[in-house]
C-alpha cells in the first residue's frame, strides 16, 4: 500500500521544501502547468472521481465546474482547514508534516479553475501548525513554487493563511466565507452558491485540505491509477483517523473502500485489553453510529450511505462496552448545542432542547417518554435548517436512539412519570 500523503518516517518532523523536492515534490504542478490545459486538469479530476474529503463528499471536479468562466471578477480558492468535526485530525498532519503537498495541490487547483489568490482558513487552535504553514509558503514562494511566476510558467498564485477562532460551524463553506470576511460565522442562504457568489462576492471554490493534497498524486499518476486505488465511484485513498477504545489510535492511509473491521482490528490494533466493541462512529461525530455487528462495511461514500451512515471525514470513533451509550449521546448533543451558530430557529432551539433533555437524563432525572420525546425533537429539526449543522446534530441522535433504545431507557427510573 503506497503511503502517498503521509509519506513520512515514524517520528520524523515536518518535511521541508528540500526533502519534499527530493521525493518528486512540485513536479506534478509543473506537469499540469506546462503540459496540460486547465480544462485537461479539470477533466482528469472528474475522471478520477475525487470526492471532497471534508465531510460532504461532493466530487471536486463537479464543484470546480460550477465556477462561471468569465472575465472580470477574481476567483478565489478557500482551503478548508477548519477540521472541527470531532474524531478528525487528518488535515493537521498534512498541514503540519507535509505542507508542501497541500501547496502543490493548491497550485494545481488554482491552475485548473483560474485562481490566483488562495486563503487557507485554518482553525485557530492549530496556531503552531499555521506558523509552519506560513514558513512553508515563504519558502515555496522564495523558490518560485508559489507567487508571481510559478516554476517559470507565467502562472501566478499567492497563498495566505487566515486563522479561525473556535467555531465548528465555520467548517461549513458559507460560514467559512463569512468568517474570512471578518463576521460571525453565520452560514448564508444558497442559492447563490459560492461558486458564483462567494468570498467578497466573487466566485469561490472551497476545498478541504486532504482533497487538495490528493491532486499532486492524481496528476502525476493519472486519473485511471487514482481511481483504481479506490472504488469505481470514489477514487484514491483516504486518511482514516481512528480514536477511542483501541490499542493504536492514529492515522492510516488506505484505499477508499477499505473494510471498517480491518481498520479497527488490524491497523488500529483492536480493542484495548478487557474491552469489547460496542459501537463505532465511522465518519466523525455527525455520522450515524454503527453497532458492533455492523462494522463489516466498506469505507466509501456509497457503501456507508447504503448502511444508513456516512463516510464524512473518515473520523472513526471506537466505543467500548465500558462506555454507557447515554454518555455518548450526552457528548453528541452537548457538542451541537455549543456549536450551533444560533441563526435559524430549529437548530438554535432544537439543539438546546436536546441537550437539556439529555442532561436531565444523565443526571438521573429522566422521565418515561423522554427517549420518544428526544426522537420527536430531533425529527422536528431534520431537513429544515439553514445549513447542514442541523442534520449533523440530528442524524447521530436518531441513530443512537434507534439502535440503543433499550439501553437508553434503562437510564430512566421506572417509577417516573412524564412531566
Amino acid at each position, binding site marked *: 500500500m503506497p503511503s502517498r500523503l503521509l509519506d513520512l518516517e515514524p517520528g520524523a518532523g515536518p518535511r521541508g521544501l528540500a526533502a519534499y523536492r527530493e521525493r518528486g515534490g512540485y513536479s506534478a504542478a509543473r506537469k499540469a502547468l506546462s503540459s496540460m490545459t486547465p480544462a485537461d486538469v479539470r477533466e482528469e479530476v472528474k475522471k478520477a472521481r475525487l470526492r471532497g474529503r471534508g465531510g460532504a463528499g461532493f466530487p471536486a471536479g463537479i464543484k470546480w465546474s460550477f465556477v462561471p468562466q468569465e472575465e472580470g471578477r477574481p476567483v478565489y480558492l478557500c482551503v478548508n482547514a477548519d477540521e472541527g468535526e470531532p474524531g478528525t*485530525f487528518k488535515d493537521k498532519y498534512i498541514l503540519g508534516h507535509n505542507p508542501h503537498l497541500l501547496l502543490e495541490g493548491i497550485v494545481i487547483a488554482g491552475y485548473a479553475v483560474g485562481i490566483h489568490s488562495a486563503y487557507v482558513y485554518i482553525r485557530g487552535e492549530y496556531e503552531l501548525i499555521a506558523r509552519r504553514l506560513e514558513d512553508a509558503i515563504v519558502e515555496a514562494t522564495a523558490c518560485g513554487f508559489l507567487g508571481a511566476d510559478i516554476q517559470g510558467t507565467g502562472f501566478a498564485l499567492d497563498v495566505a493563511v487566515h486563522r479561525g477562532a473556535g467555531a465548528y460551524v465555520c467548517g461549513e463553506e458559507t460560514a467559512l466565507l463569512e468568517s474570512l470576511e*471578518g463576521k460571525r460565522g453565520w452560514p448564508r442562504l444558497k442559492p447563490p452558491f459560492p461558486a458564483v457568489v462567494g468570498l467578497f462576492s466573487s466566485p469561490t471554490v472551497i476545498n478541504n485540505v486532504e482533497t487538495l493534497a490528493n491532486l499532486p498524486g492524481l496528476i502525476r499518476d493519472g486519473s485511471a491509477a487514482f481511481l483504481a486505488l479506490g472504488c469505481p465511484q470514489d477514487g484514491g485513498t483516504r486518511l482514516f483517523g481512528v480514536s477511542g477504545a483501541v490499542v493504536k489510535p492514529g492515522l492510516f492511509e488506505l484505499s477508499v473502500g477499505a473494510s471498517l473491521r480491518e481498520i479497527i482490528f488490524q491497523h488500529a490494533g483492536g480493542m484495548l485489553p478487557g474491552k469489547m466493541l460496542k459501537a463505532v462512529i465511522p465518519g466523525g461525530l455527525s455520522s450515524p453510529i454503527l453497532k458492533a455487528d455492523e462494522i463489516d462495511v466498506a469505507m466509501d461514500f456509497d457503501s456507508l450511505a447504503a448502511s444508513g451512515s456516512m463516510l464524512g471525514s473518515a473520523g472513526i470513533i471506537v466505543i467500548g462496552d465500558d*462506555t454507557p451509550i447515554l454518555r455518548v449521546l450526552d457528548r453528541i448533543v452537548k457538542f451541537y448545542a455549543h456549536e450551533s451558530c444560533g441563526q435559524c430557529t430549529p437548530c438554535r432551539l432544537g439543539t438546546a432542547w436536546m441537550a437539556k433533555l439529555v442532561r436531565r437524563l444523565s443526571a438521573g432525572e429522566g422521565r418515561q417518554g423522554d427517549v420518544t420525546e428526544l426522537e420527536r425533537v430531533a425529527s422536528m429539526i431534520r431537513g429544515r435548517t439553514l445549513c447542514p449543522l442541523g442534520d449533523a446534530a440530528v442524524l447521530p441522535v436518531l441513530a443512537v436512539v434507534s439502535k440503543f433504545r433499550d439501553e437508553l431507557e434503562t437510564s430512566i427510573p421506572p417509577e417516573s412519570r412524564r412531566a
Partner: protein
Amino acid sequence: MSTVLSSGLKDRIAALAVRYPRKQAALLPALHWIQDENGFIAPEAERDLAALLEIKPIQVREAVAFYTMFHRRPMGRYHVQVCDNLSCDIRGGATVLARLQERLGIGPGETTADGKFTLTTVECLGACEKAPCLMINFDYHGSLDPDRVDRLLESLE
C-alpha cells in the same frame, strides 16, 4: 495588561487590512494579534480596531462574542483548555479534568487566585489520536492520565 492597541500593533493591522479587498476581513487575524499582545480584548481595543478596519465597534464585539477563542477578560498565564468531547471522554478525559480541578483548586471557567492558571473545557481539538488531550495556550498535550497531569503542572513555571 493593556487595553488599547500599541502603535506597533496598529501598524501591523493597518498593513494587513489593505491586503484584503475589504478591511473587515482582517478582523479575526487582528483579534488574535491583539489577544496575543494584550492578553484579552478590551472595549478600548475594540474601538481602536474598529477605527482601523473602518467598521463599527459593535461589529468587533460580535466577533469577539461569537468565537470562543477570544476573551474579554484576561486569562491566567496558562490557559488550560481540556477537551471534553467523545474520543477524549472515552479515553479518560473526565478523570484528567477532575485531577486538574483538584490540583488547581478551580473549576471550569475559573482562574486561580494568583492568575497563573485558567481552566476551561473545550470541544474537539483535533488530537483524538492522543486522547485524552488538552491545550495550554497553543501547546497541545496528549495521552494524559492523572500522573502525567501532575507532571505537566509541575513543569509549568
